[in-house]
């Protein structure tokens, strides 16, 4: 059974050690919930998993093999702190664009909009959307095109109660379909048997071994 795995990962950002010696495994259908205080490195870890930044040490493997860039890109969805929504485009255009960026058709877009209750807002330019509506649009991306691995950085930020429910349901369905999800959060989300990774519990990075 294929496994997404990180071994002894060290992350250095702007000369500052964020974490070191971090291990994780993520099997099909699993949910990995990354928790921890602000600045403990949750977002950094997700960016590592997405291949947006390289680990200073340690390695990421997909069923044993080291990550192959193009393949990895095409198998993941990354949702960051930013919503990546263009003010001048309508919600629908944003999703269509994203779908075709992934080389997929736009057939799933209407359903994606519907799942996050955006159907009646679909034709509005996004600059008219409220913070939470924007966030929901960003989330709708997950459904606009299929992807095996979801990397979600505080997905529930700004969502109202109902939308949080929708999100939980969407994630559960994703897992049921054998998809895997790693998400960072400060709020309690009700997921199917989540495994927790507490960044706060890691041995805090020792003072970086000095230049010499």
């Amino acid at each position: 059974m294929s496994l997404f795995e990180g071994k002894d990962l060290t992350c250095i950002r702007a000369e500052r050690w964020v974490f070191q010696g971090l291990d994780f495994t993520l099997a099909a259908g699993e949910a990995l919930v990354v928790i921890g205080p602000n600045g403990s490195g949750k977002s950094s870890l997700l960016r590592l998993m997405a291949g947006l930044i390289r680990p200073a040490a340690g390695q990421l493997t997909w069923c044993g093999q080291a990550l192959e860039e193009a393949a990895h890109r095409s198998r993941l969805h990354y949702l960051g702190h930013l919503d990546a929504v263009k003010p001048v485009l309508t919600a629908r255009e944003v999703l269509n664009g994203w779908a075709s960026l992934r080389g997929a058709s736009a057939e799933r877009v209407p359903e994606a909009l519907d799942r996050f209750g955006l159907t009646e807002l679909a034709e509005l330019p996004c600059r008219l959307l409220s913070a939470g509506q924007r966030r929901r649009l960003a989330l709708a991306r997950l459904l606009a095109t299929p992807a095996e691995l979801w990397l979600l950085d505080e997905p529930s930020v700004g969502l109202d109660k109902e939308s949080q429910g929708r999100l939980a349901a969407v994630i559960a369905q994703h897992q049921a379909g054998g998809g895997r999800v790693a998400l960072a959060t400060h709020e309690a989300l009700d997921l199917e048997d989540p495994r927790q990774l507490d960044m706060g519990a890691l041995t805090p990075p020792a003072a970086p071994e000095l230049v010499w």
Partner: protein
Amino acid sequence: MNAFLAVIGRDLRLALRQRSDVALVVMFFVLTGAMFPLAVGPEPNLLARIAPGVTAVAALLAVLLSLERLFLADYEDGNLELLALAALPLELVALAKVAAHWLTTGLPLVIAAPVIALLYDMPADGLAVTLLALALATPSLSLIGAVGAALTLGARRGGVLIPLLVLPLYVPILIFAVSAIDAELAGLTALPNLLLLAAILAFALPFTPIAAAAALRQALT
């Protein structure tokens, strides 16, 4: 390929969503061109002398101005991450964005050039070569400019840093373009200079996207 076109389409839609956008570059081009007669005075023969130079410089500056936003918007609103994770290599993404940039900046300039030629009443044959030279030069400007734009992401005052990085690289293009027009106006052949422009383009086309992509990766870490 599919995704490549998608990126172009996306940027075109963004640019054309406000139809004014394209008009703006053109107007800046024309305005700058129109500024020099005011600045250097009206003698016709003097104006005729500087016409090719002014045209080239104005076009170059218009492109320069439009460069900053090339990647900056996507970088600030988080779209760059998505592009970096798209189905096609970042090099091609960069190339696609450059293509869109040229279609919304360089091409309109070429089309608008006759206006300036008219302001300086340039002879018809000179105009023909001007258009040709611009058509060959502007793509290179976009390509090289993209590298500068990508390099300055995250740097403050990118708007001023970009010209410093890019202008030195623009100099040969500027010189060849102007010499081509001058040669034509002097009754000589513009061909060698046009060929040099083509050579620069052929050289920039494969390499600049690689450099730009590398710079973009840096910006994302």
